[in-house]
């Protein structure tokens, strides 16, 4: 099926609860979290998408945590990107391991990296991170401090103070990194602890 036909099929099946768009030749379907497992099951059974490709998340800051999964049908040569949006405060989703066995490690990784809870997962323990690790590193509020706070290229001349190296204008910061005025070495003492 072409992405267009697939889109019609899916929209007909989901009704108004889903939206679908085609970008860069790739069909992307957004569903509500309640419909997540139904959507995956439908893709597997009705659309022949037997191949589970991957699952991950994107922290979209205020909008929430977006879960993305890609499934594909080797027999009919079509695939779709299924997405759903979860609240950043307490993201939870039913586990897809019952639908696709291969989702196991992907969900464990997403759990530790984004703090998303996958209810019904058989073994939701850290995969890549050590047991003692605290935090969800791929969340935007987990700031990679050394990359932001440290001056580059560092102190060029002996005797030069770090203050002299501060850029004159505001640096272009990665998404999710707080304003240097409220966070980091330049934070004013009033807002600090």
């Amino acid at each position, binding site marked *: 099926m072409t992405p267009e036909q697939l889109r019609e099929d899916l929209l007909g099946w989901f009704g108004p609860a889903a939206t679908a768009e085609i970008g860069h030749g790739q069909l992307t379907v957004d569903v509500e979290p309640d419909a997540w497992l139904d959507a995956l099951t439908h893709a597997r059974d009705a659309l022949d998408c*037997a191949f*589970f490709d991957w699952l*991950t998340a994107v922290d979209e800051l205020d909008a929430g945590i977006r879960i993305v999964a890609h499934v594909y049908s080797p027999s009919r040569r079509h695939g779709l990107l299924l997405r759903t949006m979860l609240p950043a405060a307490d993201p939870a989703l039913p586990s897809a391991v019952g639908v696709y066995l*291969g989702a196991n490690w992907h969900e464990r990784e997403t759990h530790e990296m984004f703090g998303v809870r996958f209810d019904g997962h058989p073994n939701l323990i850290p995969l*890549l991170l050590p047991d003692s690790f605290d935090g969800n590193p*791929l969340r935007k509020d987990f700031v990679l401090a050394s*990359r932001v706070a440290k001056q580059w290229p560092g102190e060029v001349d002996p005797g030069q103070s770090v203050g002299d190296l501060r850029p004159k204008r505001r640096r*272009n910061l990665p998404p999710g990194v707080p304003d240097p005025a409220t966070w980091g070495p330049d934070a004013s003492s009033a807002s600090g602890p």
Partner: protein
Amino acid sequence: MTRSSEPTMSAESIDEVTEPTGDGSGLGEQNAASRTTTEGTIHDITSEWGEILEDASGDDKVVINFGPSHPSSHGVLRLALEMDGETITQARPVVGYLHTGIEKNCEYRTWTQGTTFVTRMDYLAPLHNATAYCMAVEKLLGIEIPRRAQLIRVLLLEIDRIGSHLTTLGAGAMEMGALTGMTISMREREEVLHLEEHLTGLRMNHAFIRPGGVAQDLPEDYDGVVKKFIAVLDKRLPQFDQLLTGQPIWRNRLAGVGYLPVDACLALGVTGPILRSAGLAWDLRVVEPYLGYDEFEFEVPTSNAADSFARYLLRVEEMHQSLRIIRQCLAKLEPGPVMVEDPKIAWPAQLSIGPDGMGNSLEHVRKIMGQSMESLIHHFKLVTEGFVVPAGQAYVPVESPRGELGYHLVSDGGTRPMRVHVREPSFVNLQSLPAMSEGALIADAIAALGSIDPVMGGCDR
């Protein structure tokens, strides 16, 4: 204690230990039964060993920790194996020892700097990583790279594939005890690394493939050097057939081991030689051609055996097919630009190779330093801040030596990625190890692991 009292104490303790308790042989009866023959005393140790074995081999299962640093664990991988006697009842791969947070780091760097990171993940296929990443960036940018850049990428990818498969065979052979297989693989891989160094400037971690094309053109003598490489490998690849393919030990260790049928592959997301060994001719170079792979003539070898031996044969055959593609690539290469001409993306220097072997066009430096303040500012901004990528998301997969390697990039319209997710074949394929090895021996689990060929730097990222 006085000095003189010491010998007395020692003598007493020695007496206690050596005091005869049985037939005067010095060995206690409680340790082992013995009988005296004309040849001397024979100690019967089997009865006792039998008791120990009986105690140990009851219903109790033993958990064996294997790795993370073991010569046969194919990288920094740990396996927790639950054994019932010699049989594995449960196998659990424990990963994460090489996790370096590359996906997070990419969010803090410009789009171009990302190539430096991604080449360090799957260190056996760095050029595949860079290509998939750059193709995803190019998709978001909506640009088409010049034809020569495409062909250079194909040339490098196939050289990379050969190097990766050689390392796989070498590591796998070493794990099976076939050390000569390892030494000849590594010798051939050295040829690959020498060639890559000649073409890109570096043996590994090239960062040669950049969003928009490649960093610089191939050296002038590339044609002859690559042809020499092809001639060397044409001569040496058959050595694998002579040394390993027909060898009974190699065949018996691998054949019928690590069985994974096609439906299990699909449910787990397993791709690459494992999926092709199960009979599905799934190669993204053919089913979803990229970089003009549809212009090339090559075959996708498959097998129906779905075992480790089939995967070994496929890898050897894929190297021959890669050489075929490289030959066609040389015939197709024509002079032309190797980077998009968009001044908002390509670094402004039209680099020429200086005597130091690096691109450092004096002409360009003279122009921006002396004549055009504007180009200097532009150059500076492009290098330090990077280019802007329109908001959106894109997923681009390529066929790496280990299977589908894909990049899911999300941009918020800035000069840095919002999210870089890597669909790593090693990570996904490793999930199939329990299915391949449960019910088998530890020795079979090693063979299965070698045929999965996980690269832990890629798996853990």
